[in-house]
């Protein structure tokens, strides 16, 4: 419901805005009648112009048609649909999207449609005015980039990013502008009337890099994180810089003479714009985070706040003519971290999904229009100018990257090598922003058409040529790759230690680098910010957050891929195998297996690693319960909406798994669930039905499971060599959790599909958890149970303390990784 609401709200907004902007554009579909038509000779219709004004008969019109009334929303919808169909169409043939970036395909479709329209002499809808683009089409794209920006690598590389974005863009603009001006002096090309300011303006337009296609390729190829983040960040911030420069140069282009004072003013303005934009963004981000602290009773509109505040940040920045792109990016950056802790799981999903969707729509539309407009505008072609533009764009970017890298490399801990630089230079595709800026050039620029043509030429050239060739090139020169799957607990702990160490050593040496600021910021964050901005502000370290995330992730994977076809003899192995196949590229099989290893010992024990563990103790009579459980599991799975969220390219470096809880899931909830907070859905919800069921199933076997319906507290049956330590800590564990039973149970419950294990411990587990029902008093007895004879089969399995649970005590989704 939230999703539908938000989606329709967003779309409605979009449509209404377009409505106000495009009062009278012609229809895209030619043969639509231009008036209302009534089939029966009518009395005059109540609204709309009448076809037969002299109608007098008093019969009721049975069928009327009123096109102009709906014309604009209708056309908008059709365009959007058409573009989306194109997108669907690409993926039909999978191989295409691997080799040809989507932007190319979209432009091609646009070209085709444009050709069609041109031949029918239709005009494209005049939607690409300056206002429409900058107010409605650009914000979603930027919000999308900002929201899914991986924060940690970004901040670690922020110096480099800003360096490339700002100085790089300046370098490019000025370089290209100057060279073009020099070219203009050559009479042969016939472009002498373009003065320096106009050249600079044009150069600014075409130095806006927009490497959407490149980012996709980079991600597919898993280039090293540094390169990725620099390209990503550069694209974002250079938009801001370009727009600033553009405004400046537009202003300046009018002036006949440029004085040095103006140059200084320009520089000052640049700082005002940049920093002002960031300041606004942070302000709105904090306000938004603060607001979400109080939205626990109005969950349905939580996503709205996010969008409204971001958009507001953008608009207010536009009001003051400061960099709205920076504003919205910083707003979403700041906001994301706190908001995702405050809002419910569903809202979180909704937000992410809608942000992605809006961004995707905008981008699609823009590329699409690019294609259409290419055909339908009148072009002014000038071979010399355009070819030289292409040449200079290339050359200056290459030079720029080279020089800038040389300067900044000494300041980087990991310098860029030549291959990285090549990737950086070659990845300088132009795209949407250039296009829009060209279109919105003021008309007093004499050669506006030439500029538009040249811009389109560059965009097409870079997108097609570079976009298609970058992937083979990157793979060929073998840019340093990264392994995305560093996220094991182990590594996180060690990283943490290393960071502390380095910070300490730096303090020793009396110098600091980014760790210092990071430490400082984190302390500030924990002490002050979180308390203000987060509803239930208990600080949570990233290690624990990561842990939870991994567990949840694994849980979702398990749940999601329970195969529909469950036979009576559960072939666990085949279940597992099947799981591996639809897995997208993100995880190597080895890592996946690791995660599942962890999971299988950890909470669910659904799957069996038949390889690792001998099934000396497989109990035939367990099959029955197992099978029932599997069937039950499958039916739960059908009620969840599986798969789609996992495989989406939602975030570039964080994979998140949200619980796509369907309505049916809630109905299964036992009303006895002690809600600590309202509807924090986590895997507890998914697992809960299993719990209930499982408890019931254990009833026949155990007498003490009278409390089967109550949340179970703890499963520690998998301990084999139960040391005194463990027992003691179990005791404290349960003791301390007398109050917060429910949440623990949630995680516990997920262990319940234990019957799937073929080893004997299911029986043990029966003993174990049935006893571990809420009752704290049973502690004493409990401890006896696990200790007798853990079966030797488990010796093969790493000792695993079932006290994983405490970490899931707070059933809160924390995809953040600081």
């Amino acid at each position, binding site marked *: 419901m939230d999703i539908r609401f938000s989606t329709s709200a967003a779309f409605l907004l979009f449509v209404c805005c377009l409505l106000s902007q495009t009062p009278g554009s012609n229809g895209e579909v030619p043969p639509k009648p231009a008036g209302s038509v009534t089939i029966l000779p009518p009395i005059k219709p109540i609204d709309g112009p009448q076809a037969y004004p002299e109608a007098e008969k008093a019969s009721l019109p049975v069928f009327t048609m009123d096109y102009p009334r709906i014309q604009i929303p209708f056309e908008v919808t059709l365009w959007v649909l058409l573009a989306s169909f194109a997108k669907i169409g690409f993926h039909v043939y999978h191989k295409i999207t691997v080799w040809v970036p989507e932007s190319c395909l979209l432009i091609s479709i646009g070209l085709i449609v444009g050709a069609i329209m041109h031949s029918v002499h239709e005009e494209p809808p005049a939607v690409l005015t300056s206002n429409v683009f900058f107010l409605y089409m650009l914000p979603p794209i930027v919000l999308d980039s900002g929201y899914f920006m991986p924060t940690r690598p970004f901040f670690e590389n922020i110096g480099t990013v800003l360096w490339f974005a700002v100085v790089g863009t300046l370098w490019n603009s000025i370089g290209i502008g100057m060279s073009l001006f020099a070219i203009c002096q050559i009479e042969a090309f016939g472009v002498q009337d373009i003065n320096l300011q106009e050249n600079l303006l044009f150069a600014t337009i075409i130095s806006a890099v927009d490497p959407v296609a490149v980012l996709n390729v980079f991600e597919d190829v898993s280039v090293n994180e540094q390169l990725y983040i620099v390209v990503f960040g550069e694209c974002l911030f250079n938009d801001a810089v370009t727009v600033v420069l553009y405004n400046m140069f537009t202003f300046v282009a009018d002036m006949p003479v440029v004085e040095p004072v103006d140059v200084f003013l320009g520089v000052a303005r640049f700082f005002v714009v940049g920093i002002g934009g960031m300041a606004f963004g942070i302000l709105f981000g904090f306000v938004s985070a603060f607001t979400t602290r109080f939205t626990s009773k109005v969950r349905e509109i939580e996503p709205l706040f996010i969008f409204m505040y971001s958009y507001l940040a953008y608009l207010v920045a536009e009001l003051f003519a400061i960099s709205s792109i920076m504003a919205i990016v910083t707003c979403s950056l700041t906001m994301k971290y706190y908001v995702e802790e405050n809002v419910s799981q569903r809202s979180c999903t909704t937000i992410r999904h809608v942000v992605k969707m809006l961004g995707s729509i905008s981008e699609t539309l823009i590329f699409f229009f690019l294609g259409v407009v290419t055909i339908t505008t009148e072009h002014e072609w000038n071979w010399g100018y355009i070819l030289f533009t292409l040449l200079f764009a290339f050359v200056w970017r290459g030079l720029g990257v080279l020089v800038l890298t040389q300067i900044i490399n000494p*300041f980087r*801990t990991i310098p860029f090598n030549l291959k990285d630089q090549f990737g950086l230079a070659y990845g300088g595709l132009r795209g949407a922003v250039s296009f829009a800026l060209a279109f919105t050039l003021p008309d007093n620029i004499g050669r506006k058409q030439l500029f538009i043509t040249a811009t389109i030429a560059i965009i097409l050239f870079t997108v097609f040529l570079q976009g298609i060739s970058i992937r083979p090139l990157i793979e060929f020169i073998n840019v340093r790759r990264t392994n995305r799957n560093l996220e*094991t607990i182990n590594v996180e702990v060690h*990283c943490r230690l*290393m960071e502390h160490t380095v910070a*300490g050593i730096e303090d020793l040496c009396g110098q600091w680098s980014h760790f210092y600021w990071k430490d400082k910021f984190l302390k500030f964050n924990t002490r002050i910010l979180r308390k203000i901005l987060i509803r239930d502000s208990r600080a*949570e370290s990233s290690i624990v957050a990561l842990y939870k995330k991994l567990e949840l992730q694994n849980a979702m994977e398990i749940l999601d891929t329970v195969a529909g076809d469950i036979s009576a003899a559960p072939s666990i192995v085949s279940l597992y195998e099947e799981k591996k196949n639809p897995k997208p590229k993100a995880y190597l099989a080895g890592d996946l297996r690791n995660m599942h290893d962890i999971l299988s010992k950890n909470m669910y024990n659904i799957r069996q690693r038949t390889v690792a563990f001998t099934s000396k103790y497989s109990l035939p009579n367990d099959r029955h319960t197992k099978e029932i459980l599997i069937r039950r599991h499958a039916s739960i799975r059908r009620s969840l909406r599986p798969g789609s969220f996992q495989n989406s390219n939602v975030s570039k470096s964080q994979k998140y798994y949200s619980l796509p809880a369907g309505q049916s899931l809630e109905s299964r909830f036992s009303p006895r669930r002690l809600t600590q907070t309202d509807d924090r859905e986590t895997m507890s919800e998914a697992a809960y039905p299993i719990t209930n069921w499982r408890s019931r199933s254990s009833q026949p076997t155990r007498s003490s499971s009278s409390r089967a319906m109550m949340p179970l507290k703890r499963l520690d049956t998998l301990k084999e060599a139960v040391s005194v330590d463990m027992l003691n800590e179990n005791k*404290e564990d349960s003791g301390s959790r007398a109050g917060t039973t429910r949440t623990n149970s949630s995680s516990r419950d997920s262990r319940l599909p234990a019957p799937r294990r073929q080893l004997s411990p299911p029986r043990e587990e029966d003993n174990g958890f049935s006893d571990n029902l809420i009752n704290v008093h049973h502690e004493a007895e409990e401890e006896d149970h696990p200790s007798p004879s853990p079966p030797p089969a488990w010796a093969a399995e790493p*000792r695993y303390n079932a006290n994983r*649970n405490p970490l899931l005590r707070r059933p809160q989704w924390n995809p953040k990784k600081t």
Partner: protein
Amino acid sequence: MGSNKSTLQHIPNAEELMEETGFSAAHIQRLYDRFQLLDRDQMGGLRNEDFEAIPELVTNPIKDRIIGAFLSPGKDMVDFPSFVRVLAHFQPTNSKRSKTSSQEQYNSPTRKLQFVFQLYDQDRDGKISKTEMLQVLQEMLRMEETDEQLQSVMEKAFQEADLDQDDAISFDEFKKSLEKLDISEKMSIGFLC
């Protein structure tokens, strides 16, 4: 700041240190100045009190371990060569060194890993035991998490890393668990001079 060799005369063994650790003369000079600054009672060595006097270091959760890493076993004072040697671990890996083979350099990835390993392994038995890891976790996260949670995290980390199931992580297991991580990226400081 003097950066020619003649000003290093007063630093004992400066040249050997430079060769051994790969620091340039300017670096050594700067480190020496810093050493002098920290060594408040001018004893020629740093003790615990000197370390504790660094305000930023005091708030570091693992400061004791870091300090311990400087002190060689049996001594309670860190002299300048030890100081420099430890700091040499933190040079970026690809700084130019051509003399000794890469494995022996202080800033080779293996040496860095060994350094981290020793931060865990306080009793120097060559293995990280569960208690040692738990202690580290407690030190780092004490304010934020409860002990049970840390216990769980530790267990999980052990489970991931402890491949031969001997309840301790040896250096090889440690190394293997971090093989995908770029150590030199994490454990490097750009030394200014």
